[in-house]
């Protein structure tokens, strides 16, 4: 791939011992002391590494668990005294949505910035909830481009944030009238504020620096602006100020330098937008809508207005509807909003950003297929810093993985690597789909396959109605 199209990632080693899926238990008793001990034959050299690890042990509460689980030593040991065991620390990572496998792969991507590659076929469930209930399409012949070896080199992942006119207008002299402000970001990913439970003030500068390094945007609470230190002004092109309903407006001078602001939805929203646009007509204004019981209807209602530039639809951490008993998933809610706005002819004029539950690169692609122009992420960046999502983030107690002690090279490097890996994976998926531009991925449900539809189309015809569990 030509260098100019490749984002170089540098390996940033983890600070902590890895939490692997399994380890080998060695009963020791009855060991025959063979000269050709199976431990020496470990293909992955894990026993030697384990010995080294123990020699320089810092965390006495962490066992070595980098076994690759091939069973070779267990099955070859002369006396049969080795056994593979599950690592309980691994099983305790994350939760039902942010599974140990998601956390493990995020750590690996944050370390090396590479697309995770493995052997053997897919090993997981046939289907699942949320983003796991759909597949992306591929094309046997159609490619985004014939240039280069893979035809992926020139795929554009850039998207536009802002209001887009349906046509160009010209004045009487034939000069184009001013276009509404549009922000071009190199990939459909924006860094969002961390959820309150996980928020740490020392991370804000790192997240902003990551946005600057990747050329994307980061949403920060305006009250956190001072956390960026003395040279905070240099980050202004990458900042989106979030102005909660109680927030004081930034100074006009500052507001004039910012490209985008985000405000909470509320009853006087049009007034607030007008007020901000008056102060800086060149700033894109995004409205953050919580996807609660009325979120979808509210987004559809707001999306009909020509003064709307960007709607940011946010589910909970797991992508679920907020505050309801049987929550819908963010992809389904966004798809409904998208389709409704397409039907009413308003969709092309505005931008939809979706957040909540975006845990893997594939979620980004799938959410865009389901109608978003771009997604926002928060927790994956925290996980990149080796967070285990243990939810004991009480500021009064210390973080088990010392998040408050991380340094910029590590913090920014790991977050940057993760975004690089996601970017490359998005290109892989788009390449397979034969789509050359991320802009064209938006709402392209013809390039997606949904579990319910496929079941209906195939098994439904053979086996009748589906049971509802």
């Amino acid at each position, binding site marked *: 791939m030509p260098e100019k199209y490749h984002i170089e990632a540098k390996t940033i080693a983890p600070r902590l011992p890895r939490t692997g899926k399994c380890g080998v238990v060695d009963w020791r008793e009855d060991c025959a002391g063979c000269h050709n001990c199976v431990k020496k034959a470990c293909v992955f050299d894990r026993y030697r590494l384990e010995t080294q690890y123990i020699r320089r042990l810092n965390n006495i509460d962490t066992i070595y668990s980098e076994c690759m689980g091939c069973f070779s030593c267990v099955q070859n040991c002369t006396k049969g005294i080795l056994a593979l065991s599950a690592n309980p620390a691994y099983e305790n990572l994350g939760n039902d949505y942010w599974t140990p496998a998601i956390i493990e792969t995020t750590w690996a991507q944050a370390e090396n910035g590479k697309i995770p590659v493995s052997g053997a076929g897919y090993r997981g469930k046939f289907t699942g909830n949320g983003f796991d209930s759909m597949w992306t399409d591929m094309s046997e012949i159609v490619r985004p481009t014939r240039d280069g070896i893979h035809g992926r080199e020139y795929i554009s992942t850039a998207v536009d944030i802002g209001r887009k006119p349906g046509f160009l207008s010209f004045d009487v002299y034939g000069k184009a009238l001013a276009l509404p402000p549009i922000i071009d970001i190199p990939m459909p990913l924006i860094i969002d504020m961390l959820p309150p439970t996980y928020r740490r003030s020392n991370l804000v500068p790192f997240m902003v620096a990551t946005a600057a390094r990747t050329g994307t945007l980061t949403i920060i609470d305006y009250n956190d602006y001072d956390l960026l230190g003395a040279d905070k002004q240099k980050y202004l092109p990458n900042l989106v100020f979030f102005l909660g309903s109680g927030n004081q407006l930034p100074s006009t001078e500052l507001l004039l330098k910012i490209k985008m602001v985000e405000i909470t939805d509320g009853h006087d929203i049009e007034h607030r937008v007008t007020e901000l646009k008056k102060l800086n007509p060149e700033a894109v204004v995004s409205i953050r809508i919580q996807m609660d019981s009325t979120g979808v209807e509210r987004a559809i209602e707001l999306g009909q207005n020509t003064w709307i530039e960007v709607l940011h639809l946010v589910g909970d951490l797991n992508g679920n509807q907020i505050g309801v008993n049987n929550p819908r998933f963010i992809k389904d809610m966004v798809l409904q909003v998208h389709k409704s706005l397409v039907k009413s002819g308003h969709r092309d004029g505005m931008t939809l950003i979706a957040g909540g539950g975006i845990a893997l690169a594939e979620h980004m692609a799938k959410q865009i297929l389901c109608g978003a122009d771009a997604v926002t992420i928060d927790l994956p960046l925290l996980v990149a810093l080796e967070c285990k999502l243990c939810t004991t983030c009480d500021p009064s107690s210390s973080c088990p993985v010392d998040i408050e002690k991380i340094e910029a090279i590590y913090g920014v490097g790991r977050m940057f690597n993760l975004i690089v890996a996601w970017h490359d994976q998005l290109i892989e998926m788009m390449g397979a789909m034969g789509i050359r531009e991320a802009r064209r991925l938006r709402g392209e449900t013809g390039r997606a396959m949904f579990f319910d539809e496929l079941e209906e189309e195939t098994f439904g015809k*053979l086996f009748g109605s589906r049971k509802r569990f």
Partner: protein
Amino acid sequence: MVNSLVQESDFNLILPEKTIQTMVPQTAVSRELKLAPPRYRNEIAKYIIRRNSACIKCGKCAKVCPQGVHVLKPGYKLFSSPKLQVCIGPACQKTDHYCVDLCPQKALQLVENPQMKLLGDFRWPGDMILATWKMAETGNPPPPEYNYEYETGNSGGGFDRIRFKFPAKPPVDINENEIDIGVELNRRNDGRPNIRIDVPWYGGGMSFGSVSMSTQLAKARAATAFNTFTCTGEGGYPERFRPYDDHTITQVATGLFGVREETIQRVRIVEFKYAQGAKPGLGGHLLADKVTPGVAKIRETVMGISLFSPFPFHSVYSIEDHKKHLDWIKHLNRRALVATKVSTPNDVDMVAVGSYFAGSHIVHLDGGYGGTGAAPDIAKKNIAMPIEYAIIKVHRFLEKEGIRDKVTLMVSGGLRTAHDIAKSIALGADGVIVGTAELVALGCIHCSRCESGRGCPRGIATTDPELSAQFSVEWGSQRIVNLYSAWEKEIKGILKSFGMRSITELRGRSDLLEHLDYNNDVGTKK
């Protein structure tokens, strides 16, 4: 044994001179069952029996156990390592030889092996791996008392939720020897040979590089024994394959590694690979560590450099272009059948019809959950549909187009057992292509470490000389022969239950299936 060319005398008249020159004597391989014990010292068992310090070594457990789990050799005071792999576990409780109850000191305890939790995954659960090993060892389906839940996996969808609706008793009594499970591969009536395989499956493409030479040859020998095929994959045509030319499919994939006119002329089936189920739309991957001098030589590449096949064929923009390629192959080898391997996009039905009209004898669909030596995780899970859906779509569309009986539909993509094979055929396929199951027979545990470093620690998906020396070709081919034999028995058993004399009667009989997540309230006619 002579080459098939000599037998096909009519073709000699029209064959190019070069094709004749490629003939080499062919090796015969016996289908005979032989015990092929596992190659590891300690087998993984579903159950383990713990012996505590109360044991007085009276030897009663060894005497009562008909399976021979407990081993107390004459003249020895201590027990040898128990053969836990033959323990039938809780099923033994109902018998009069349950060692745990009969132990005078109550020193024994039966528990499920905690390691089973780490063996396998949702698609290949531990039980399925153990059952496949047992079949590869003995050549028979695992006895029911082992209590292996191996007919389906735990993925929670697709084949894992589909069952056969077996009648209480077979409608007619058929001797299993009368049942024919062979499949014709050429239905075009185009003057090319009528190749028939004796079993409704052949081996999937695995290149030299992705797997070891011993693995490839073991597959080729088993294919020869069962008069079916194996496939070279896209890594070139090793010379050691020559004695099995008649049962080898050579693959022409986008990388064209080692593809030459003479390799195309050696075989009876040539496969055009457009895509692979594990990485649809992405082309092949062989990471640098596995590109050893031997691999680099046969692929005509540079050692230690990762090989990424392009995607797709850069000379194919349309079905017409595809036809041009098939015509090229057909011209080069005038006795060969041509197979087209594609993945399962939304329009897989159109792709299949297009492939037929371009001249394919065999349309090979490789579903989204298929196997691989290395693929991006994001592709394995998310791109293209699982094969279960694709079979139904394509079978019905070919019927609608009136060409169903003119093309052979072979499918793959995560098919693991004889039951998966039979279900695929009942959904509409003519036959299937298997891959991972053969590797499991050789000792694979589906740990998914094939791509890294020297490759597979089990010596299967590696080209490292030391690792690949872990088993011999003879042992490997016997394991696969045994697995095939067990599958043959299972499939014949299924057909017998339905009173069918031929596997062709099962094709498209989805009315014999039920889905556990459906009310099964629609009667589907043949």
